[in-house]
């Protein structure tokens, strides 16, 4: 074997990670080569010294308290909603509530405008210019239209409510 080949086998030789015939070959070479013996000894010294490097023990208290620290860390990380994959699931009801409130307030404002006479007399919401863009729908069409544009449908429904109903709705909110 050449010195270069021995160099490649130094670590496996010291790690007892070679087949017996290869161990014999390496040993034979080492017996006759001072340079490779020195190299082998250097690597052995590295392993001995590296292995001798201890990790300081942080102490019993650290180990006793460690599971509780993990438990607290886990509580912090665990999402309040359910976890779906990597995304955190958030409950949707706050968004739904906020959207509903906006719609009701919008409808209330619209009704306020109407009450102050901004709509020309004689033109009702459903007949006048304000509703020009709103479709006149039969009951059978409500569901289909709701799918396409629920916001407009809600506004349309709200504008048809009378003052008493609106007041009751706002009081409930």
């Amino acid at each position, binding site marked *: 074997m050449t010195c270069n080949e021995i160099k490649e086998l130094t*670590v*496996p030789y010291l*790690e007892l*990670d070679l087949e017996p015939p290869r161990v014999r070959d390496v040993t034979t070479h080492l017996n006759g080569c001072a340079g490779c013996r020195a190299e082998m000894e*250097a*690597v052995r*010294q*590295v*392993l001995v*010294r*590296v*292995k001798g*490097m201890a*990790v*300081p023990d*942080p102490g019993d208290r*650290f*180990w006793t308290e*460690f*599971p509780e*620290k*993990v*438990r607290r*860390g*886990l509580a912090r*990380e*665990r999402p309040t909603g359910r976890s779906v994959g990597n995304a955190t699931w958030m409950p949707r009801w706050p968004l739904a509530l906020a959207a509903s409130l906006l719609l009701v307030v919008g409808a209330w404002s619209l009704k306020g405008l109407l009450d102050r006479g901004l709509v020309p007399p004689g033109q009702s919401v459903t007949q006048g210019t304000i509703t020009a863009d709103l479709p006149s729908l039969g009951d059978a069409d409500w569901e289909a239209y709701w799918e396409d544009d629920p916001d407009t449908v809600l506004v349309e429904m709200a504008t048809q409510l009378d003052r008493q109903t609106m007041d009751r709705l706002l009081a409930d909110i």
Partner: protein
Amino acid sequence: MNAGGMAASDYQLLDRYATGDESAFEELVTRHQKTVYDLAYRMLGNHADAADLAQKTFVQAFLHHRSFKRESSFRTWLYQICLNQCRNALRDRARLAHEDVDELALAAPQDTFAEAAKSELRDRLGQAIRTLPARQREALVLRVYHNHAFADIGVIMSCSEGTAKANYHHAVDKLRRVLMAGEG
């Protein structure tokens, strides 16, 4: 311990944890905390970072325990999580210091070339280990300190057994050069 006096396996403890058994959680952490801390310390080099990373490792393990496929031991899975966290921490550290971890190897030991006292040599060796490229350090730590076979190291590091061996050999070779330079 179960009623028969036999210690429950990690898998059994995980099953119990999944049903809300808090004592199983405690037992799993206690069983593996020293191993995980040791690995983190040897990768990061100080107590504060090691303690923080060991905690994160367990938190991630318990958060995602349902995705653990049990194709390896729980300990091996912890090793994998821990090393992933270590790689991230080392990357962040290198970014903060504007240093490339891979380029640092051997730089510090050569700066202190003239010092030959044993304690300094030990410091140098420790510094050299800390500045090894992450993959080489992982292979070295798992082999020398945790006595894993190279096949296991390959599983933990998500590479082949041959790559694990090569990383280990490169690490030892670099440390040998440090040692020889120090003893000039």
